[in-house]
């Protein structure tokens, strides 16, 4: 994996100049690499990972299992893209197993998620069925533990 990308994915808050310092390359090169990664579609974007409960606007998260009929040309892709384009959809994956698409939706209320499913999602031609589950509580979000005992990382100042 590209060095800049590796450093990025480690989850520390570093600006481009700090990254340049750590990697031993000029800042322009770091920026250039970031642009290239974006162009190639490797780096999709930057969003900080937030505690789901802290975001007042989007506290309700629904995980919807969607069954769709695959099409002659393109299989599941066309429908999946169509669903994924909705702003309400945070993530959309094709899954193996008893259903086809896993769709993650975030809205401010339960009602809004439910309406999205019944009015927008279910009505799409090709959708066979949906099963909606609501997230009750988050313990870990994208690699970050949410509630953990305060880590006592006190080391002795000097040790041999």
């Amino acid at each position: 994996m590209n060095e800049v990308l590796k450093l990025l994915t480690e989850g520390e808050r570093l600006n481009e100049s700090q990254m340049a310092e750590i990697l031993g390359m000029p800042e322009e090169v770091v920026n250039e690499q970031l642009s290239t990664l974006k162009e190639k579609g490797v780096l999709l974007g930057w969003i900080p990972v937030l505690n789901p409960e802290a975001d007042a606007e989007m506290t309700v998260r629904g995980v919807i299992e969607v069954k769709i009929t695959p099409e002659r040309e393109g299989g599941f892709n066309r429908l999946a893209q169509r669903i994924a384009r909705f702003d309400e959809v945070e993530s959309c994956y094709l899954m193996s197993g008893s259903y086809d698409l896993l769709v993650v939706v975030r809205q401010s209320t339960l009602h809004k998620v439910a309406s999205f499913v019944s009015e927008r999602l279910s009505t799409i031609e090709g959708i066979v069925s949906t099963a909606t589950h609501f997230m009750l509580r988050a313990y870990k979000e994208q690699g970050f533990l949410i509630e953990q005992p305060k880590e006592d990382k006190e080391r002795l100042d000097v040790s041999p």
Partner: protein
Amino acid sequence: MVSPLTQRKLNLFVENSENRFVADHVIGLPRSGIRDFFELVAGMKDVISLGIGEPDFTTPWHIREAAIYSIEKGRTFYTSNLGTLELRRAISDYIDQYFNIKYDSNSEVIVTVGVSEAMDIALRAILNPGDKVLYQDPCFVSYHPTVMLAHGVGVPIKTDAESAFTIKAAEVKKSWVPGCKALIINLPCNPTGGVAERDELEEIARFAVEKDLIVISDEIYAELTYDGEHVSIVNFPGMKERTIFLHGCSKAWAMTGWRLGYACAPAVLIEAMMKVHQYSMMCASIIAQDAAVEALRNGYDGVQKMKQQYRRRRDLVVRRFNEMGLTCHLPQATFYAFPNIESTGLSSVEFAKQLLEKEKVAMVPGSAFGEFGEGFARCSFATGYDDLLEACNRIERFVASLGVKSAVAASDSIQKI
């Protein structure tokens, strides 16, 4: 009026009445340079410490979880003196897989309370009073004092920056004197980051066979080798029967506080060490032993992840030191950089003291690790990026204030040696 001689005798008498309970050879132990420095730092606030000889990572969760499970299961008893058979098997398998050395788990492995204990019982098991022990200088602070505590005599071997602090066979031969029974080698080395060079090690091995030396090889930093492959002296002809191989979980698996180490050696030597161990320690903590099994069997990926982080930090600090005018070789292993601070015109201790006072950055003076450490300072880069970046800036400021010229960054040639 009291004569100076009598005054001296009187002083001694006063001293003696406080110290008279303490054994002579303990009074004779030199005061630890690290301890002194620690006391200086302890009183200060907001110090960025680059003097920490342990990882800044917490032990990976799966290892901690194994220990918790062990406690839940009620494993709270003594184990066999040699350590649980399960752990000895795990050790034997691990050493075979990664070091290509076969040790029998029943008779050739002993689990100890940290590698420090392994070194201590090894020396106490092999040294007769007055026996001489060769060891590299600079080196880990404990080696020489432990030799002294075992009533041995330490014989230092010079290592230097020109050879990136590897141990040179010529220097070993030069330092050898009649009466040398053992040779302690620590490669990769704390504090210098020096690693073994195959050809040198091969010749040292031949010399050890020729002089019938017993070798104690502390390879605790082996996994944290960035460039090239770690070489163990045990792999050379005639060495397995005369080497006590020391290793443990502290550095690569970030388990310093767990106190888990081990020694692998021919059965007779293990038996001897066991005699000392059984009376002084009995056994290492059963919880730590269970955790170590998990670490050795399933910890490889975690080690690689940590190593990658260290490597990146190494590149950063070594580059910065060289840029600011402190010549620093690129350590091929460990999380220590050992820059030469002579360009400041200060002694190691003065450098460390003044850097601490003026810029609140702590680096351990190289002289704390031996006579040949004078002129150097040890930088532990086992710490977070923000601290490292800030510390480098502060050190640069300090060094510049002493008139040291910064080198024009030729970072490419310095980074990839």
